[in-house]
């Protein structure tokens, strides 16, 4: 932007021309090598990257692949690497970015095509691995669905909800240097989920049970505290404090043995 334009009042400034470069590759067409394709468009008021990408797809290139559902930072589908950092397209205003914008699919996750990745497959595997569901006492006939749930203090419900806001967008995993180096690392998303279930009085698991799931170098002890997760989380989850909290709890469980008992083989 030249000086004359910079001196003009905001409402009379000409709109910026955005140059959006997209790393394109479709695994279904392996004969076409990965390539950068640049699209130009005029910036509009309140434009998000999600709006810009839709405009490109509608007007310039219907073959461009990217995911979205909610447009409001709730579904986590539109996560991508924006100028080197993971983020949600729908929550990123183009005014926050320079006119040259580089977009790439999230690493770590299986590529579907262009900016679309299969976070669901990875998240499903993570959920099964660390058992991200309430482990309640069940009767011999299974769970008692007729019994009223026990009451919970509002503060406790709030604390659980605070961690339950995770939308599984995958940004924390893509921003994690450990996960990039070591594909078996569970990631902040998993550790945050276990911190959430640890708070839940309906979940009967204790620290010894959680240690079984994340008490090794692929789990909480593998975290190298690079804190990319905390810095890119679109929901501002307190990942740094939760990772530290679970590390302390798991270190105590592992050091002493669960419940303070010596971990001797039975």
């Amino acid at each position, binding site marked *: 932007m030249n000086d004359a334009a910079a001196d003009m009042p905001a409402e009379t400034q000409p709109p910026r021309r955005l140059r959006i470069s997209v790393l394109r590759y479709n695994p279904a067409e392996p004969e076409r090598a990965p390539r950068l394709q640049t699209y130009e468009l005029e910036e509009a008021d309140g434009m998000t990257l999600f709006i810009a990408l839709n405009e490109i797809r509608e007007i310039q290139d219907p073959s461009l692949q990217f995911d979205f559902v909610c447009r409001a930072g709730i579904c986590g589908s539109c996560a991508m690497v924006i100028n*080197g950092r993971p983020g949600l397209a729908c929550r990123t205003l183009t005014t926050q970015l320079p006119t040259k914008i580089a977009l790439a699919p999230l690493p770590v996750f299986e590529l579907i095509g262009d900016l679309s990745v299969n976070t669901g497959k990875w998240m499903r595997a993570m959920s099964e691995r660390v058992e991200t569901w309430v482990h309640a006492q069940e009767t011999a006939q299974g769970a008692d669905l007729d019994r009223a749930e026990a009451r919970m203090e509002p503060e406790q419900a709030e604390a659980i909800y605070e961690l339950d806001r995770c939308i599984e967008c995958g940004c924390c995993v893509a921003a994690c240097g450990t996960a990039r*180096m070591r594909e078996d690392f569970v990631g902040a998303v998993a550790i945050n989920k276990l911190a959430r279930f640890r708070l839940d009085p309906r979940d009967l698991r204790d620290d*010894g*049970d959680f240690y079984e799931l994340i008490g090794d170098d692929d789990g909480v002890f593998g975290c*190298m505290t690079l804190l990319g997760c905390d810095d890119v989380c679109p929901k501002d989850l307190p990942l740094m404090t939760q990772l530290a*909290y679970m590390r302390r709890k798991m270190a105590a*469980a592992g050091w002493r043995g669960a419940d303070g008992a010596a971990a001797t083989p*039975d």
Partner: protein
Amino acid sequence: MSRLRRSRLPARLDVTQTLSGVALALFIWGHTLFVSSILISKDAMWTVTRMFEGYFILGRPLPVLVSIAVAVVWALLLVHALLALRKFPASYRQYRAFREHRQAMRHADTHLWWWQVVTGFAMFFLASPHLYKMLTQPAAIGPYASGDDVWSGAWWPLYLLLAFSVQLHAGIGVYRAALKWGLPGGGDGARTRRRLRVLFGGITAVMLALGLLSLATYLRIGYEHRDRVGERYVPASVAAPEQP
């Protein structure tokens, strides 16, 4: 659940890595302060040296005490290095993945970790000669002896590199350890992090400045003393009674 089926070793290794690292960082900060006593005077440095040799308790210097301390530090360093080595990129694929990530993210804490890897690796080579010398020649520490080493013994390039490596590694390491384990009552994570950065950035800058100034001072002393290498410094207060 009262029995762990999974090994308890990862928990113990993780705690030991942090504890050994923090102990080494505290040691190096103390070391820097003691070494920089040369900035006050030769007498001050001589007094510190003699103190660690037990002179003021035993009535005579016992340099083997220094050797014992060096052996303990070296053992601690060995344990810490072994444990920290597990976190290094273990293959070219891992190295490349991390490098791409680091360059794309342009993220402060990711960069800091990489500097810890670089400085940690450097210290495998830089710290060992220094420790070996201190272990085997514990009596050769003093205003003139150290000055002679630095200048006439040409140790200064090694100490210069070591000063940067060890201070960066210690400062970044303790900052990261605080974040890794969390501080009690740390409600606002971002604020905690900002404060810790200022605190440990400040400590590192002060320690590095002291270390470099001390090294410059030993260089000057060693240069001025280059024709009398081997002569030991004796404070006037000690030497005076012997004067006729």
